[in-house]
Each structure stands twice: as C-alpha cells, then as structure tokens.
C-alpha cells in the first residue's frame, strides 16, 4: 500500500512539473503571437502603397508590359510546391496540416502526369518532405519565429528563377492563414504565373482614398526611367509580398496553435492531477481503514 501511495505522489509531482512548462510555453506563445499580429499590421501601409503605385504607373503606361512571371507557360509539365511550416513542433496540427495538404496536392498533380519540385520553408516542412522521400529542391529554415522581408525575398527570387528559367511551369504555396489564435486554415494559392488581375485589383477603401486624394495634375509626373520600367520592377514585388504575407500569417498561426495546444495540455495536466490526487486519497483512506480493522480485530481477539 505505502509504495503505491508513493508512486502516485511521484506521478503528481511529475505532472505538476509538466504543467509548469506547458503554462510557460503558453505565455511565451501568447507574447509572440501579439508581436506577429503587429507585424501583419505593419505590412499593410507598404503593401497598400505598392498597389497604389502600380495602378498609377499602369495608368500612365496604358498597358501592362510583358513580364515573364505574368506569362503562362504553354504546358504545365512541372509544378513547384512551396510548403510553409514552422521550425519547431509542439503546436498541435499546425505543421502536419500543411504537409498533409501539400502531399494531397502532389498526388493530384502526379495523377495528371506532372513532375513535382518541392520547396520547404521551416525545418518541419523540410524534414517531413525528406522523410516521405520528397526531397525539397530548396529549404529555407531558421527564421519562422520572426521572418524578415529579406527571407521572403530569398524564397520569392528562388521560385521566380525556377519559373522563368523553366524548372517549373507553375508554383503553388501552402500555408496556415491566420484567422484567430483559435483558428488557422490551410490555404492553397497559385503564386506563379502571377495573374494580371491581381496587379490592378484594389480594395474598396483604397479606391475611395484615391478618389479624394486626387494626386494633382496627372500626366505631369516625371517617371524615372519610364512607366513601363517602373511597372516591370513592381510586378515581382507582388510575389515577394505574397510570400512575406504567407510567412507572417504562418508565424502568427504557429504561435496561436502552440498557445492553444499548450493551454489544452495545461488543462489536461490539471485534470490528471485531480484524478491522481483522488486516487492517492483513496489509497490512503483504504490503508487507514485497514489499520483500524486490524486494531479492532486485535482488540476483539484479546477480549
């Protein structure tokens, strides 16, 4: 009896320690989530300004000049898949959801006779792909806690080179889009070829801003070198921005998922501690009852 009581007490202590760790991880994730949300917000003014500038330059040029990443390849023989996951685990289904979506898409493409080229962002994406024998052509790791624009640029430029140089005829990206701390949804987007429509679409609020802003006399703007060249420079920025947005949302999702997973773990630990305490008390009570019965039986025997 005494040994089982000690066992239970040890287990309670162990579970309490785990609970302390999961609580701390939950709090760290919550702080990082806030920072990640701020970074998504910080991107907005820049992205909006790039879109406005594109529309201004497109108006001045009168057309969208030919840029290789806007041109569809005649045949889709080879597809590049970019999986955006995290560097670390312990975040619920965050990493595995992206990998699962990517693997399912790969199967679809293969059934249509297409070759696949994999790209991984985050250690977990890279290792999951290698484990399945889908060796990534390029892995980008070590920044998923706090992705910089330079990281997005590096990925975007690798993908654009692959597209322009004919290594792939299409690029799709898979990432966890951030909805809230509790909910993340895996999104699948076609990154390349870039749809010309995305260049000229404008969210309603920006449209209104432009109308009232009426930026002075049109046509008197001096372009350096010329509107077409400015546009040609702006087009690849859309790909970089899409990837940066995906990285930021993925980071926010990762911290959100980890926070939720760790909260659940802490709660489970609490329930377990309750159950174990009950079990220990029962064992102790049983022991006391046993002793009393022995004493009583002994007294009766004497009497």
């Amino acid at each position, binding site marked *: 009896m005494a040994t089982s009581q000690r066992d239970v007490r040890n287990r309670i202590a162990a579970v309490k320690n785990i609970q302390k760790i999961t609580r701390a991880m939950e709090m760290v994730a919550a702080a990082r989530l806030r920072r990640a949300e701020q970074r998504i917000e910080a991107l907005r003014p820049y992205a909006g300004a790039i879109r406005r*500038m594109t529309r201004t*330059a497109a108006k001045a040029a009168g057309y969208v000049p030919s840029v*290789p990443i806007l041109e569809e390849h005649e045949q889709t023989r080879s597809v590049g898949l970019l999986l955006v996951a995290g560097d670390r685990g312990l975040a619920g289904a965050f990493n595995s959801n992206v990998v699962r979506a990517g693997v399912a898409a790969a199967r679809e493409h293969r059934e249509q006779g297409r070759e696949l080229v994999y790209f991984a962002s985050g250690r977990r994406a890279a290792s999951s792909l290698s484990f399945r024998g889908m060796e990534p052509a390029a892995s980008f790791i070590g920044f998923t806690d706090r992705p910089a*624009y330079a990281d*997005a640029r590096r990925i975007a430029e690798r993908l654009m*080179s692959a597209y322009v140089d004919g290594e792939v005829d299409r690029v799709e990206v898979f990432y966890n889009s951030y909805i809230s701390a509790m909910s993340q949804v895996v999104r699948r987007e076609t990154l390349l070829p870039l749809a010309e429509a995305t260049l000229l679409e404008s969210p309603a609020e920006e449209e209104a801003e432009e109308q009232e802003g009426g*930026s002075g006399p049109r046509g*008197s703007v001096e372009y350096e070198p010329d509107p077409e060249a*400015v546009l040609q420079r702006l087009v690849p920025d859309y790909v970089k921005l899409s990837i940066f947005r995906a990285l930021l949302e993925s980071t926010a999702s990762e911290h959100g998922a980890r926070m939720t997973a760790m909260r659940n773990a802490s709660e489970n630990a609490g329930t377990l501690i309750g159950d174990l305490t009950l079990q220990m008390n029962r064992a102790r009570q049983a022991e006391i009852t046993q002793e009393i019965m022995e004493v009583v039986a002994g007294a009766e025997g004497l009497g």
Partner: protein
Amino acid sequence: MAHKKFPVEVLTPEGEAFSDEVEMVSTKTMLGSIGLLANHEPVLATLAPGELRIYRTESEIVRFAQAEGYLQFAGNRALLLVEEALRPDQLERSELEGKLATARSTAESAQEGSEERATALREVRRYEAFLAVGQ
C-alpha cells in the same frame, strides 16, 4: 541657410522606418543620384541599393542603407518604399561579407542569361552597397 521643410515617409514591409518634416532627401535611383527639396516636381522613380540621406537640417542627417525600392514625390510629400532601410549601426559587416561571397559564387556558377544569375547579380549589388554605407 535653412530650406523649407516638407514631409518625408520611408516605408518598408516591416514597418515605418522614418516619418518627419525635413529639408532635403538625397538618394540613389536606377539612373543616378537624386536630391529632393520642398516643391520638387512630381516624380516616380525606381531606387537602387545605396545610401539614403535625410537632412532634417543642414547639419542633422539621418542615414540609411536602402535596398531596392521606389520614390514618389507628389503634392509636396515624398514617399519612399524600400525593401529594407537599415541604420548604419544595424549593418553586420561579417554577415554581409558572407552573403556577398555566396551571391558572387552563385552568379559565377549560374548560367549566362538565366534569371538565377540576374538575381544573384542583384544581390551582389545590394550587399556591396550596404557594405559601402557601413564604412
């Protein structure tokens, strides 16, 4: 002699790098250098990696290493959109030198005329410009 001031905003994808009323901005475009004073004529230019100098006054200068970007001057306001705007003290020399070496070797091994090579050459120019600002 003090110049008239005008608002300047420097935006990067990671947030605002600078926003204030200043006397002059001098930066590098794809075609050369450009200096902006208040009431400059409207311009939309592509920026090349290089040094960005913002003169709050003639003697108080804020310096950045800028990556590729755009400059728009309209309605007596200057807006600079740059991929990166780093203060000279944020530049890590050894890290930049490492990246420069990698970019150079990629450029050498990549096929002539390929996008891969063009990308690597852009990187070479960017890191060279950063290193020059950091000196």
